[in-house]
């Protein structure tokens, strides 16, 4: 079944990434997916302003998420925490102890999937600022349509997300170089296997199978986004 804008279920909207837009920031990037666009800027590493924020062994990361309109509420605080924890996983913070890296994400337009777009923008801005990163992080948003015939939609628009039974935002490390597939005595794999799921936030009701399908399909979308991000990063 076709989606409202003619896309297939597994098709992402047109992606655009502009780097180095802001002259006063150490790094900046604007990431656009269809009608959703986020502008991220990075300042740092700079000296941590207070001893409360300073860590003697690692750089401290601070994220500010500004919605397009309205005051900052608990949803924005949750997004800040998720973006911060995801970026902390890829930044090599031990190289810059006692410093502060500040990332500010401003939502320019919102047509669904804003958290995933913000995460991608933050990662691209960190690359632009030449902050040392272990690998690239790619995020996608997914929606599970309601009803027994409901399809799994990748990169839903705001209307598709509002009508869905469940939505989810997932971030992956698709390019992580698995050094070795270690398996512990209990049989679990130490590295993230094939999925490399870093961050996940879902809302609404899913069956187990639907959740597993969602994370799997999300990973495929993230692979494509990561390839695009690599291209964007390699262009000087």
């Amino acid at each position, binding site marked *: 079944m076709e989606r409202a804008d003619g896309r297939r279920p597994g098709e992402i909207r047109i992606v655009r990434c502009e780097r180095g837009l802001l002259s006063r920031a*150490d790094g900046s990037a604007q990431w656009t997916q269809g009608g959703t666009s986020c502008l991220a800027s990075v300042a740092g590493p700079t000296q941590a302003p207070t001893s409360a924020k300073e860590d003697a062994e690692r750089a401290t990361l601070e994220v500010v998420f500004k919605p397009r309109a309205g005051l900052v509420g608990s949803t924005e605080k949750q997004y800040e925490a998720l973006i911060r924890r995801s970026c902390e996983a890829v930044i*090599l913070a031990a190289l*810059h102890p006692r410093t502060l890296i500040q990332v500010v994400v401003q939502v320019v337009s919102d047509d669904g999937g804003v958290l995933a777009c913000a995460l991608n923008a933050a990662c691209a801005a960190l690359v632009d600022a030449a902050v*040392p990163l272990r690998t690239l992080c790619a995020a996608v948003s997914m929606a599970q349509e309601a009803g027994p015939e409901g399809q799994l939609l990748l990169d839903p628009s705001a209307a598709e997300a509002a009508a869905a039974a469940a939505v989810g935002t997932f971030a992956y490390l698709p390019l992580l170089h698995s050094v070795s597939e270690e398996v512990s005595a209990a049989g679990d794999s130490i590295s993230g296997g094939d999925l490399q799921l870093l961050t996940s936030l879902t809302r609404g009701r899913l069956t187990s199978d639907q959740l597993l399908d969602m994370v799997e399909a999300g990973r495929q979308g993230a692979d494509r986004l990561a390839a695009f991000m690599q291209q964007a990063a*390699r262009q000087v």
Partner: protein
Amino acid sequence: MAAVAEQTVGKSVCPGDVLMSLPETGVVRIGGGVQQEGEVLVATKAGVVQQAKGGKLWVEARQKRYIPSPEDVVVGRITDKHSENYGVDVGGPFRALLPVLAFEGATKRNRPSLQPGDLVYCRVETAHRDLEAQLSCMDAAGKASGFAHLKGGMVVEVSTTLARSLLSRPPAAVLSALGRSLQFELAVGQNGRVWLDAPSPATVILVANAIQSSEFLSAAQQEALVAALLKGSSAAATRRQQQQQQQQQQQGDE
């Protein structure tokens, strides 16, 4: 090992790209932007892979924020004065320290007279990530070799990549083009700061504009940029006049 590394030199990489796998034996030197992960070397920044003369593999990333690293030459501004050191702002996350005795011919009795606000051209001696960077106005042999207090002039901020290209040999096209027609003094710091001084303010501004605009231009484009800027400038006209006068004088002498 050398062969594998040569394949990747000059390639554009992004964080997470594998540069090469470590050889069984031997020593591999790496610089900024490269990290060892298990048995491979991985890039941590987006940029172009470079190999220094000693075989050091590193990634040149377009970075605005300067992180001190040893053997860099920097333009610093003195922020405060203590009994043993000067505190110097080099544009990095923390201030750096310049020992009062790190000048050629300085002794306890004969200290340099630098005040907060002065500019110095110096060398980064040590830069450990947990400590403040140590600077020196002497080279390794103890000679001044150009490191000194910079009087007058102005400082222009550029990216660290542009600063590096301005310091390269052969000189960047923009500098040689400017040098043919104008008279000015220049000190390039790898911390993205360029100090300029010239007899007239118009010259300083012209040189500053030319340098800042030349970052993404090819050599031919840089020459064209300088020619366009010089056409409308009076400083160049004065210089041309002076050159003509000198030529006439020489002819008169013969």
